[in-house]
């Protein structure tokens, strides 16, 4: 009898343990699809051991990070930081610090220390119902001579309560100057969101993304070019291509961008650039949701953000140059043995070898970069 009693007690204990374990185990389980992104500086998973030249600056969860030699370094706290951009001489960073009602542009060292605040967009509420006196500044860039700050800016707004047409225009202000010293370079279309992502060009002028309505009343993005403040400018891409996020190659002869052709896709697209117009659009990647392309400073490829899996957060990817600029086919060498006097040999009908498709390389996993934040890359 004692043996049976002991057995029963043992079984009861075993059942409690296994039942509790089962419950606790299931509670701790979570599919990868819903797992929160890790911090880039977490020891695992490490970025792939793939060394890119220079240092890439990017944003996640309101913090800026640098990525060099396969390692991430956190530059700022998680305090609304986004959209880093390098000074043209590579000495410092511009970045946006975003709050609930406004955002401002700051200068930071390459190690993330704030050295100055370039805009002051905070404004007192005009009433309980009207916080519209605040302003947003996004996508800051410096002119090549480092004397003018360009950014998307939605102020100043003279209109008061009930003014719904909030649009961004590209503004240029002297670096270190006040907003009243600046002026709008573009004229935004009403109720579209406006003009974003200015890209100052070496020879003066700007490329930027302009949002407008197409003939079917869908809102679309287009790359535009303007060579001076206030000029009408011209469209570089069609409304049908729906392109945005321009990035100029280091040699200044090519432009990378994303285009979605009105669908829930985002193709990595490149085109040649001659200083005033674009060549034909060439889709380079069409099977990923590509965001924020940026050229390597040495021209060896393009980095970009894209989900690490279906409907997943955005990771850092790298596309070697061979994918979009395959090496030219080899020039046939002369037939050895000197001049041939007989009848010309018939060329064999073999097809030219197809170059192997170069696949993009996923550099990070389980992270969650801010895909609305442009990347910056120093050499």
């Amino acid at each position: 009898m004692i043996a049976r009693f002991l057995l029963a007690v043992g079984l009861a204990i075993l059942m409690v343990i296994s039942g509790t374990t089962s419950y606790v185990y299931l509670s701790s389980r979570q599919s990868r699809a819903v797992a929160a992104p890790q911090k880039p500086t977490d020891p695992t998973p490490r970025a792939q051991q793939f060394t890119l030249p220079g240092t890439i600056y990017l944003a996640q969860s309101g913090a800026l990070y640098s990525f060099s030699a396969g390692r991430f370094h956190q530059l700022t706290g998680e305090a609304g930081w986004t959209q880093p951009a390098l000074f043209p001489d590579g000495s410092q960073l511009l970045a946006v610090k975003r709050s609930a009602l406004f955002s401002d542009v700051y200068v930071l060292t390459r190690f993330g220390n704030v050295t100055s605040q370039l805009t002051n967009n905070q404004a007192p509420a005009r009433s309980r119902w009207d916080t519209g006196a605040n302003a947003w500044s996004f996508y800051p860039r410096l002119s090549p001579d480092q004397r003018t700050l360009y950014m998307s800016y939605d102020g100043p707004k003279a209109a008061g309560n009930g003014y719904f047409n909030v649009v961004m225009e590209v503004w240029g202000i002297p670096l270190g100057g006040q907003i009243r010293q600046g002026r709008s370079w573009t004229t935004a279309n009403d109720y579209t969101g406006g003009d974003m992502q200015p890209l100052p060009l070496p020879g003066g002028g700007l490329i930027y993304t302009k949002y407008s309505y197409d003939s079917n009343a869908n809102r679309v993005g287009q790359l535009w070019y303007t060579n001076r403040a206030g000029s009408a400018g011209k469209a570089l891409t069609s409304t049908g291509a729906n392109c945005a996020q321009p990035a100029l190659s280091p040699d200044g002869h090519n432009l990378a961008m994303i285009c979605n052709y009105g669908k829930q896709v985002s193709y990595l697209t490149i085109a040649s650039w001659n200083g005033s117009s674009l060549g034909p659009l060439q889709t380079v990647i069409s099977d990923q949701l590509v965001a924020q392309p940026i050229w390597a400073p040495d021209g060896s490829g393009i980095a970009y953000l894209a989900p690490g899996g279906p409907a997943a957060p955005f990771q850092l990817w790298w596309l070697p140059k061979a994918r979009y600029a395959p090496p030219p086919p080899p020039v046939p060498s002369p037939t050895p043995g000197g001049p041939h006097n007989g009848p010309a040999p018939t060329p064999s009908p073999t097809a030219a070898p197809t170059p192997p498709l170069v696949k993009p390389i996923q550099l990070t996993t389980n992270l969650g970069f801010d895909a609305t934040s442009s990347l910056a890359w120093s050499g």
Partner: protein
Amino acid sequence: MPFGFKPGHRARASRRRLSPFRTLTIALLAVALSAAAGGFAYFIPAAVTAFNATAQVVKIPSPSPGGLFFSPSPSPSEAPQSQGAFTVLLLGSDDDSKFFADHVLTQSMILVRVVPATKEVTMLSIPRDLYAHLSTGGFGKIDGAYSYGGAGAAIATVQQDFNVHIDDYIWVGLLGLIKVIDAIGGIDVVTTNPVLDDYYPADVYGGDPYGYQRVAVLAGPQHLDGLHAMEYVRSRHGDLQSDFGRSKRQQQVLTAIRQKAKQLSPEDIPSLAAAIGGELKTSIGLDRVARLVPLAASFDNPDSIRTIVLVPPYTHGGGPGGSVTPNWSLILPLVHQYFP
């Protein structure tokens, strides 16, 4: 012979003493049963939520008395359910402290028709400000139907005005959508343009149901959490198309949620159930939900989902009280085509 020992005792004792094999079998069985019980206990809250949220009984009121209105369409008829097709009315509401419980406006009304055999999905967004005959009587903005008579009134209104047969409804509260998107780990969306709004309601986390806040959802591909997805689909002031533009964004986010839902696994169910607790109601029974999940997963191509927004000339502004006036002569043939 020992004292007290009787013939036959040894045999009975040996029967009572379990063999090691039987002991092991019983132990394994007990462990398996208790582990299953632990797992069952883990899923109980989800099951309770599911039971509470699903199979809601809907009382569809009969059409309001004749003579009060001229209905632009005949009374709804039982549409032939070709190839197992069914129509669901999706309702989305502000359910913050501005409103009494379950007397809320439906900011979003989307008719969804699913044809499993051909894997066709059609989503038709009904403008919230559409000036329509309400099943509860009289005319008004169609978003008021739910507030006057709950889901039944909303269904009856859409059925009688659009001449469609609605099989089921799903209602989601504002916070529910935020929580659901967070519970599934966010969604990937290509936002069409910067959505900027200086007068976005501060009723979710702003602490003032009548206050406003600024929002800026930037354009392009991105991974949205619940709050920012809500800002994207709810803002309408910065949109020339106002509610129509918002309807397009709502359809976009619904498609993204469906895409993400395909990545989930059973272990995510409890957190999902906790997220939707009290924020989701549907007339669809649990058994049908179980059948619909694999069906939803089989729809692979988001571009195959047909989306319809009743922009002009199907509607035009300037109706009473800021409402949108329907052009029934255009709307009804369109609805008949896609919601036969």
